[in-house]
């Protein structure tokens, strides 16, 4: 097992390295300069700026210098934001996005599984149809439209919650709900779809005929077999919500990491682009890896396959 883990670890690191290389060169391939703004800069000043930040050197030199920094966990200074380093940006933004993301994830997972289960057990009856409508709305209405709508309804009209910003728990409710809507809907539908199949299997009928009541049947037998696609989906989803959503953070004025993904590219803030990409990729690869491990726990049949190898 430990052999397997070490091997997997190396694979993860090499994937991360590939992502770094590709992003670095992609980033320099698109036009645009971090320092060119609306107001014109005389050429000599632009050159001086490039020299100051080491942008006048050939790309591969810049890349190796950057790599060297990464290995020492120093992700460089931001080109646009004076005096701030990428390390600071990530360490202040990530906890906020993480908190919000976890809240949304909890809502999505519990809500989705419950909703999906109820729908599956009432297949082709009214609760199923109601749930389907809710789920489709959750998937067809993008998060920022829902966010604006919630803001208008709950904060402006009903004054139940503060409009925006970050600091108290009540300020996390609307953003978390907006973030959770799509995952909740999708998880609900995945759960329902697989559960309908599982509920019709013979061994469920057996359990029922043996006298086990609904919930026990549900928890012990049905869920385990139905949740594989949900767990698959949760892998990349966790990485994505933990690093924040640009739209939601913008609407609610939340100082998270999500806005940096878009802002850094718009500003051509090279070091920040690289930093947040590496951070996100590391998280993503880790989450996908954990999901793969979980497969073996959830479905014993899959474990056989790995054991065979």
């Amino acid at each position: 097992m430990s052999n397997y883990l070490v091997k997997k670890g190396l694979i993860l690191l090499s994937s991360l390295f590939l992502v770094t290389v590709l992003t670095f060169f992609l980033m320099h391939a698109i036009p645009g300069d971090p320092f060119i703004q609306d107001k014109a800069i005389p050429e000599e000043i632009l050159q001086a700026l490039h020299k100051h930040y080491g942008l006048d050197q050939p790309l591969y030199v810049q890349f190796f210098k950057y790599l060297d920094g990464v290995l020492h966990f120093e992700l460089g200074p931001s080109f646009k934001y004076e005096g701030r380093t990428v390390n600071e940006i990530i360490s202040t933004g990530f906890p906020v996005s993480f908190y919000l993301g976890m809240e949304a994830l909890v809502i999505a997972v519990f809500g989705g599984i419950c909703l999906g289960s109820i729908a599956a057990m009432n297949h082709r009856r009214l609760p199923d149809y109601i749930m389907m409508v809710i789920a489709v709305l959750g998937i067809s209405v993008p998060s920022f439209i829902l966010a604006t709508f919630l803001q208008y309804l709950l904060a402006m009209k009903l004054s139940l919650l503060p409009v925006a910003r970050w600091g108290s728990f009540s300020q996390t409710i609307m953003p978390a709900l907006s973030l959770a809507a799509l995952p909740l809907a999708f998880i609900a539908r995945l759960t329902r779809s697989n559960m309908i199949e599982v509920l019709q299997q013979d061994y469920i009928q057996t359990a029922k005929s043996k006298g086990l009541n609904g919930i026990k049947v549900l928890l012990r037998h049905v869920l385990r077999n139905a949740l594989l696609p949900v767990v698959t989906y949760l892998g990349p989803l966790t990485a994505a919500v933990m690093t924040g959503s640009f739209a939601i953070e913008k609407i609610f004025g939340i100082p998270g990491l999500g806005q940096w993904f878009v802002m850094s590219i718009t500003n051509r803030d090279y070091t920040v682009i690289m930093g947040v990409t590496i951070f996100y990729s590391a998280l993503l690869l880790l989450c996908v890896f954990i999901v793969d491990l979980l497969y073996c726990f959830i479905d014993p049949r899959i474990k056989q396959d790995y054991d065979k190898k």
Partner: protein
Amino acid sequence: MTKNNFLFEPIEKEQAQNQEETSYSSVTYWQDVWHKLKQNKLALICLIILSILFAMAIIGPFISGYTYYQTQLSLKNTPPNATFWFGTDELGRDLFTRCWWGARISFFVGIAASTIDLIIGVLFGAIAALAGGKTEEWMMRFADILYAIPYLLVVILLMVVIGSGIFTIILALTITGWINMARIVRSQVLQIKQQDFITAATALGASKKRILLQHLIPNAMGAILVTLTLTIPSAIFAEAFLSFLGLGVQAPIASLGTMANDGLAALRYYPWRLFFPAVLISLTMLSFNALGDGLRDVLDPRLKT
């Protein structure tokens, strides 16, 4: 018991003819599917709704007599009335016409991109899971790396290298859009391939291709269809985002997603500008979903009790 108990006995000709008449006429697989689908009332209604929506997307822009680009600034932001059935937008253009034009773009891009994502995703995920070992490892790594690269960078590069247009948007949407489907299909296939009937099929000498297409993929049908119903609206709104950045169709043409984006800022003052495009998208998705569910109930071999 002797061998003689099990000999075939020829029957009389009249008996044979009678027997044939009592059996029902043979139908093809798809005729059977259609027959069963018709019995699902909800799916049928949704099919009709979808047909109406598609028909409207084709003829709708010509009904009202206005064009989608004619601006009449003095008539901007009028609520729905007898002349402008859906009202007008911020430049005084008829929203009814624009909605159906937008529907064309959204439907086309949504379905095209989703279909490509479907085909690539399903094949990639199933083949990876079936192959197993190093092949699977490399395939999934490739997918992970592609997924991790900042999408916005890729989009900007495409915009610069290829320029904007429908083709570029579909390309941009399908570069990474298949990955989610691939992952989910892979997980399903990993589960299915352990089952006895697959072992049986392999023992019977079925080729990998046959196992893939006839056994593995149909059994993953449930998850595939559900994921498809997520991919389509994702594609529609991703297209709106890309058009906003300048990659897609240029003004004055706008897709439903773009119109919903624009209408959002006006939610409090001119709600119809958000309402109509959003309702069209949601209605389409609801119908697709119900239809998809109905199809799944018919096609999914796991549900044949």
